[in-house]
């Protein structure tokens, strides 16, 4: 299996994703600079990591979506390739139209970093198949623009198609519509989520609930190959 982690100018969770993929999940992992035109051959998962690409100028993710690598990511996703966007990565995927809806500044207008509990809304996806709908998972959020928005029609589609992956469980930290924390595209091969599973993949850091997401992908890839 091979994981590619994209680095944009201003990405700052790219090394974290590489670390978890390589050292914890023990998968061959490559860093990809955003100016590349192609993804490394035989990539099984693309991670668009967190951070502040282009300093979040204008809107988070608005500029990074035009990076050369994003065309390759789009073709890859359209061909069914697996993509996870975490935090800024989620924002980039939404701006790029690879996921529906839009992201707005937190209702509090403040950056929020804290541990949250998530309800797993579906296990019918390559990213959540090893999770349990009855066991909420805990991990940090750390963002300024995490208020997910989609119009009523879009929301209905998300629901009927089981595209909502995670919801914030107790309180809604950022005013996100219906407490949405993560969504899937219609074909379930692209996941975007605001919380950081890579920061919850080692006992030492307080939670290993995030690792379940990466393990789900690993399992999916292994079964399919």
């Amino acid at each position, binding site marked *: 299996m091979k994981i590619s982690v994209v680095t944009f100018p201003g990405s700052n969770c790219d090394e974290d994703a590489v670390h978890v993929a390589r050292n914890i999940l023990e998968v061959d992992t490559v860093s990809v600079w955003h100016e590349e035109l192609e993804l490394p051959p035989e990539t099984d998962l693309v991670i668009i990591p967190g951070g502040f690409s282009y300093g979040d100028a204008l809107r988070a993710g*608005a500029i990074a979506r035009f990076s050369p690598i994003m065309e390759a990511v789009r073709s890859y996703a359209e061909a069914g390739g697996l993509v996870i966007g975490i935090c800024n990565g989620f924002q980039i995927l939404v701006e790029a139209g690879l996921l529906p809806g839009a992201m707005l500044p937190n209702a509090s207008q403040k950056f929020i970093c804290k541990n949250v509990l998530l309800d797993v809304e579906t296990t019918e996806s390559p990213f959540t198949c090893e999770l349990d709908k009855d066991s909420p998972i805990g991990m940090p959020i750390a963002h300024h623009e995490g208020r997910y*928005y989609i119009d009523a029609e879009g929301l209905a589609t998300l629901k009927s198609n089981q595209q909502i992956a995670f919801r914030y469980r107790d309180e809604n930290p950022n005013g996100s519509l219906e407490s949405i924390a993560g969504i899937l595209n219609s074909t379930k091969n692209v996941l975007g989520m605001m919380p950081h599973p890579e920061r919850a993949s080692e006992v030492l850091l307080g939670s290993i609930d995030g690792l379940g997401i990466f393990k789900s992908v690993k399992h999916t890839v292994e079964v399919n190959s």
Partner: protein
Amino acid sequence: MQARMIVTLRQGVLDPAGEAVKGSLAQLGFNSVEAVRLGKVIDLELSETNEADARAKLEEMGNKLLANTVIEDFQIELL
């Protein structure tokens, strides 16, 4: 040419920042403020000399990058 783009949240999209500003204004005694909505202004200096060209370009910039039309509307002003 100087141009200004005003980007505002679409109707129906909640604006908690605007609400918060309204609250703070009320706290400062500005009770005549009935509603507040926040948006962005983007001032651009363009080398175009023809108004129509400039407008067309700005329209394109707005749709492509400067506004996210899922949540935002934009207006163009040439100064």
